[in-house]
């Protein structure tokens, strides 16, 4: 069960997202995260799906995705060199001695504090998913008030380009 990042170029039409999501649920494939937004060409959306499965399952996933009429291109990013990032916004309690500690933790992880109240911080953190996981693990769980993660997005390195 390997982790794979599937990148999809898809027609930016209403319902396109549900076709992809519906395919995954109908065929029993799992989605760990899914992000989607229009590209520089507003008629196309770029979707990134984090999934896992055996080689056979992944082969079926890419074939089935390619079969969707709205899908223009599909690439398994994790097949070759790529970079991936995820963004997290995390709201933490920041009072008394924790206030200074939180600031220091954010600095260590190269996060930025983007909202401050008397008792809370919102920290923005970008990186590979494992880095976000480590940050959460490093904090005192009792101090975490809320976390929001975007899910993974990724792009091939160098000349690997997904474009029409």
């Amino acid at each position, binding site marked *: 069960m390997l982790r794979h990042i599937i990148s999809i170029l898809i027609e930016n039409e*209403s319902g396109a997202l549900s076709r992809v999501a519906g395919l995954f649920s109908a065929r029993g494939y799992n989605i760990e995260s899914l992000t989607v937004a229009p590209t520089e060409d507003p008629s196309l959306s770029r979707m990134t799906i984090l999934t896992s499965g055996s080689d056979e399952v992944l082969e079926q996933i890419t074939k089935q995705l390619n079969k969707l*009429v709205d899908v223009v291109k599909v690439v398994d990013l994790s097949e070759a060199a790529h970079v991936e990032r995820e963004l997290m916004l995390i709201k933490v309690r920041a009072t008394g001695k924790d206030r200074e500690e939180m600031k220091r933790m954010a600095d260590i992880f190269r996060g930025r504090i983007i909202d401050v109240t008397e008792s809370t911080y919102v920290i923005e953190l970008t990186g590979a998913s494992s880095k976000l996981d480590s940050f959460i693990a490093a904090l005192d769980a009792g101090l975490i008030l809320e976390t929001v993660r975007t899910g993974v997005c990724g792009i091939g390195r160098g000349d690997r380009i997904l474009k029409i």
Partner: protein
Amino acid sequence: MMISGAEIVIRCLQEEKVDCVFGYPGGSVLHIYDALFKQDQVKHILVRHEQAAVHAADAYSRSSQRVGVALVTSGPGVTNTVTGIATAYMDSIPMVVLTGQVPSFYIGQDAFQECDTVGITRPCVKHNFLVKDVKDLAVTIKKAFHIASTGRPGPVVVDIPKDITAQMCEFDYPKTIQMRSYNPVVKGHLGQIKKAVQILQEAKRPIIYTGGGVILSDAAEQLTKLAHKLNFPVTNTLMGLGGYPATDKQFIGMLGMHGTFEANNAMHYADVILAVGARFDDRVIGNPEHFSEEKRRVIHIDIDPSSISKRVKVDVPIVGNVPDVLEELVKLMDGGFRTDPEVANWWKQIDEWRGRDSLRYKQSEHIMPQFVMEKLYEVTGGNAFVTSDVGQHQMFAAQYYKFDKPRRWINSGGLGTMGVGLPYGMGVLMANPDAQVACVTGEGSIQMCIQELSTCKQYGFPIKIINLNNGMLGMVRQWQEMFYSKRYSQSYVTSLPDFVKLAEAYGHVGMKIEKPEDVEPALRKAFTEHKDDLVFMDFIIDPVANVFPMVAAGKGLTEMILAEDL
């Protein structure tokens, strides 16, 4: 000239050379029905339930090379079509379903007869559209026909809000269509085809295993040519029957759950499988672990890459249009191709398996369903279009009616939808007006779309309904007998109507046949004297006749139960 959206819909159908539409009117499609009324190029068949409209359109496609079209209203009109759409989808049948929708400014407000058509049908269509602007209407319908009929075919739904059908627009029907996101592969990879030729040459125990793809792509001729050149045994799936002549000596019968002894054994023990337009589904190969115990090489030709290596690992995948790939294979074989001499021994083995005569059945004082099928074959000279419902009768028809031509065997293979038989007969007759049509059914299935007897009267569809009546949901009963210690839970049908009177009430001819010696005369009478009538033939058959051979669920393909074992 500006014309209304409704008129655009009809003009598009005319441009697509659609000669008939199966449908049912309602609020959201009134403009379209008004436009339909003002012309006579596109005929309309008024069904009695929307499900039948879609089944009929589906059979229109199956029995011809054309795209069937259904037209229904919003809400319940659409939900009634879902079974028919899913049926067509599972068997890859090209079809366009035009659905009315509430006016676009009402969408999402739970308006009267509103439903989320695109959402409800999404998992069972090849693609679907909601038309949001009258300017997109013609091009959307063009796309629908294009998508439905190319690549691996399938049903396409076009949902048209009522206000769009009232708006005025210039009509411009595109001659061709280009879609950057949809370009199905047509030509097989030459390198792969060469590899296939090499493997076929080395094969000692080969089999050609073909499915519905051969029928859908009209590749029967190319397949026959190739098979004759190779002199390899040929087996068909349920969907592939007629893709290779059943009376040919190389044909070893249907394979799978109710396949012949020789076909299932040959499939299992083959060292090379040439799979053509088939998908190794669960009813065909039985238990996949058992199937993978034998070492073999698989060549798989299919238009749909996702069908390849889905359930069985394939050594030589060839993605492409089946007839083109087969032609290419034959061409390559012209350069000094020789089959392995050991194939002769393989044939000896197959003939030994054939000797078991696995379709033999015991006669009884009752009418045997197999006997009815044999007589139907004789009386129709093997030339009928046979539509069937789903159950034991379907398997008997598949096993005993020897289909020599493609597109003659019309049944729901993938979804297994009871009730399709009668509307399928209507669709066949619209596409092939002079055809002999037999609808092989049972007293369970026929009642699922029985209301269409009325449609058949209105349009004079002379379908011969062969009702194999055992008073049981036979296939359910068979499983309960074999795997549930004869606990016949809800498989016994009481309070059956008098089918003869029922047929007569609808204005048709009814016959009840209770003795074996009356079977043939009754059939002859139906197909000659009552050639132009719908004849409902109620055959009272042996109530405990079962379908054999049988590969039980979860068993291996060679672990068959034969009639002689019991």
